[in-house]
């Protein structure tokens, strides 16, 4: 299992799906460990009842069916698929509505789904998912990307209330690939995957949704920033180590 995780840290993130299915077939005995420890790009299904797409993950799966957050029905239909309690379902519905607006404001498109379920210690767990195809054939408004995918998975464990406070433990993963392609610069492709955690004790006076939403917003901004500044920056530094651009600086005076 350690070796498998080692491989996943090295294989180009754009090949995650192929790598995971290869590992699953090589190590069938570890399939549940692999599926829970390796994040893979999100899949989507259409809710036939309301004609809206929803995201699939381990958290809305029962047997071979997936529950839609829109109709609360399993696809393909499942007789006795597990459902959240009525109270939690109410929060889930609200979360889906609000999170769709949040997603639209930051992503200008994309698909989002929120799933909630009770856990064993009087709290609950919520999973917020976002998938965006930013390519020019997808929902990239500016048309810069030949290929562009962003998948975000946020899982929040919400503890029981203690004197008007609650512990929130958030684990977030972002996976992305972006490729630009043009005549003069060829294909330029960056792909990456990072995961971070954050815990907070917050007053329940603002409501769970408000608390969870703020944490996710903060985390997403952090992850986006570190991908952009730190991770992409490090690969750029590497390129400059391989071939320092001093010549370029001399040859190319600022044009403006």
């Amino acid at each position, binding site marked *: 299992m350690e070796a498998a995780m080692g491989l996943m840290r090295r294989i180009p993130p754009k090949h995650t799906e192929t790598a995971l299915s290869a590992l699953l077939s090589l190590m069938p005995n570890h399939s549940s460990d692999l599926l829970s420890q390796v994040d893979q790009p999100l899949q989507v299904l259409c809710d036939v009842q309301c004609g809206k797409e929803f995201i699939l993950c381990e958290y809305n799966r029962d047997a071979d069916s997936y529950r839609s957050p829109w109709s609360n029905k399993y696809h393909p239909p499942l007789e006795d698929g597990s459902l959240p309690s009525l109270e939690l379902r109410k929060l889930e519905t609200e979360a889906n509505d609000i999170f769709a607006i949040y997603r639209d404001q930051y992503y*200008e498109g994309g698909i989002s789904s929120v799933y909630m379920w009770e856990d064993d210690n009087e709290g609950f767990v919520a999973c917020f998912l976002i998938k965006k195809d930013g390519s020019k054939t997808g929902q990239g408004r500016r048309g810069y*990307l030949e290929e562009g995918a962003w998948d975000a998975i946020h899982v929040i464990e919400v503890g029981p209330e203690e004197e008007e406070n609650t512990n929130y433990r958030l684990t977030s993963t972002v996976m992305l690939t972006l490729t630009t392609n043009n005549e003069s610069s060829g294909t330029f492709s960056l*792909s990456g995957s990072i995961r971070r955690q954050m815990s907070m004790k917050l007053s329940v006076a603002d409501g769970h949704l408000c608390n969870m939403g703020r944490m996710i917003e903060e985390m997403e901004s952090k992850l986006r920033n570190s991908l952009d500044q730190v991770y992409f920056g490090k690969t*750029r530094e590497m390129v400059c180590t391989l071939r320092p651009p001093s010549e370029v600086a001399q040859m190319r005076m600022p044009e403006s």
Partner: protein
Amino acid sequence: MAEEEEESELSDKQKVEIAKWFLLNSPPGEIQYVAKDVKSILNSDDLYNEAASEAFPFYNKSHLISLQLSNRSGDVLVTSFGELEGNAFLEPRTAQVAMVDHVKQVCTGVRPATDEELPSPYVEEFRCNLDAEVIKYVEETYPKGVCSVYCASGKDVEGPGSNFELAVVISAARHSPQNFCNGSWCSIWNIDFKDDQQTVEVKGKVQVGAHYFEEGNVQLDAKHECKDATLFQAPEECALAITSIIRHHETEYLASLEASYLNLPDSTFKDLRRKLPVTRTLFPWHNTLQFSLTRDISKELGIGK
């Protein structure tokens, strides 16, 4: 479950294929680490050895790895341009042939090249002059660059009147696992000397890769191809003209890579996720009631989705 059990019945051949896939997809300079993990997952030395013996030569050649000659007289590049039979690679500058152990990635022995393995004196003069110019360029441009010039075809051409081809190979790699970063720059320039047209056609392929893996896994994969041409002249002039073409295109390419990076934060990345919402203020989580109100109104008016 039935499906999983079926899948677990992989044939040895399939296992070897999967192992090769992992090895071939190793980032620059990391195949030995990948090999260790693959070996422990396969749990069979025979299968691992089979996969490694097929994947390593391919990886070494496509990544243009450079190995120190066992007699310490320089480096040899592992590339199909210098490949001879039996894991031997020509090092044209010193006219030596290196025996290569692909899986260990070392040179195990060196012998002088035979006359048949080397180009004719006529072609050698073009090759050698170009090599001298390319060395100068690579030394001043790549802190850890290795280069070599091969005769790719027509090595027996004895004098004017026939076409021949040279290939310039440049490889620069940097491995700093302690800084969680590895990278490589590989360029291959095909130089087609067309005697009949008195021109020299230059075709370049550049591939740059980088992997940063501190608490994450982010990889750059960039490729570029270009073409240019110059006049067929004396060996010294050709060497200067070709090297200046290479310098020009590689410099331009580096600048375009820089430009791609500069465009990331404000344009390219924005099509995935914006830094701030379209409203340019943080999302009003404390006041989401407004959204339900707006929604109810639009529903009543029959607008919206």
